């Protein structure tokens, strides 16, 4: 049994099975990342989306046809992987070199309070547990005033929000292969949960969880 998903590509309606949807979604995300620094990114993506719709339309054999993985694979073969697009190479290599540097971020995927401990852990390549223990120890030794330092760090260190941030945090060079790996990792994480739910339902419940966490954090943060 296969679930189907309704999608809308360049204002054209398609039904697509779940597995094919995942592949398509990943491909579109990869394209978005590839062109994230390019002028006229929206236009390029729009045109590619229109082309995908055109190709899908051609493989639709009847009105109730459900796009399957073969159709998606065929489409990707025609359009090509973003690595094969042959964009101007020079500015790109400059960018990757720059982003090879490691940066200090807060890791909110792995956190108890604000992710400061795990962020510092990533930066100095030590286990976050040691950083956390050190922080707790220092807080006790300083009679609590060290908590203020934690709070300052929390405010000053930016949160690793984008995938690129998360890679920089760990010192991985930001390139397509790494970002793809990252997407896959994230995807596997939520796959289990989403399998049980409808896509839309999952989206709204994720929002609720986020909201809840935000409230929780607010109530934990020291009021100064």
């Amino acid at each position, binding site marked *: 049994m296969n679930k189907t998903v309704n999608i809308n590509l360049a204002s054209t309606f398609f039904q697509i099975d779940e597995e094919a949807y995942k592949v398509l979604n990943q491909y579109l995300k990869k394209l978005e990342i590839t062109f994230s620094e390019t002028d006229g990114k929206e236009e390029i993506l729009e045109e*590619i989306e229109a082309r995908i719709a055109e190709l899908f339309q051609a493989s639709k054999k009847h009105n109730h046809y459900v796009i399957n993985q073969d159709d998606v694979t065929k489409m990707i073969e025609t359009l090509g992987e973003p690595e094969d697009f042959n964009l101007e190479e020079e500015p790109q290599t400059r960018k990757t070199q720059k982003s090879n540097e490691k940066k200090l971020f807060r890791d909110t995927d792995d956190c108890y309070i604000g992710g400061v401990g795990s962020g510092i852990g990533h930066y100095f390549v030590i286990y976050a547990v040691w950083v956390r223990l050190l922080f707790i120890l220092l807080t006790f030794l300083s009679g609590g005033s060290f908590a203020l330092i934690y709070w300052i760090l929390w405010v000053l260190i930016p949160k690793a929000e984008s995938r690129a941030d998360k890679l920089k945090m760990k010192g991985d060079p930001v390139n397509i292969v790494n970002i793809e790996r990252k997407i896959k990792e994230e995807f596997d994480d939520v796959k289990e949960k989403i399998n049980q739910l409808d896509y839309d339902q999952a989206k709204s419940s994720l929002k609720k969880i986020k909201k809840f966490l935000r409230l929780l954090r607010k109530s934990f943060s020291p009021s100064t």
Partner: protein
Amino acid sequence: MKIENATAQMRKGVLEYYILSLIFKKDLYTSEILVSLKKGKMLVVEGTVYPLLSRLKNVKLLTYRWEESSSGPPRKYYSITPEGKTFLIDLESAWKELNKAVNIITKSKIRYNEQNR
């Protein structure tokens, strides 16, 4: 070195010239451009064309307009700008020079081979 890589580089180098010449003759929409490029074996993957067209538009060598089509969604028609035409003329003379130079070398190589046989 693989022959595919070398030929891909060659094609990439003349791709802009090819596309500008194509649109110079007649305004075209994206799929028509793709068809012609494929016929001329100028493309490995279609994806290459979109960023290239966008770049040519951004530097104002090309413009586009939307046109309704009787079958399916509206089409994006590209046409060449006056700047594009001047640029194309420059490209053409550069191409002719290059072509001549390459031809002289390649021809003489063939003659050299024949003489030494």
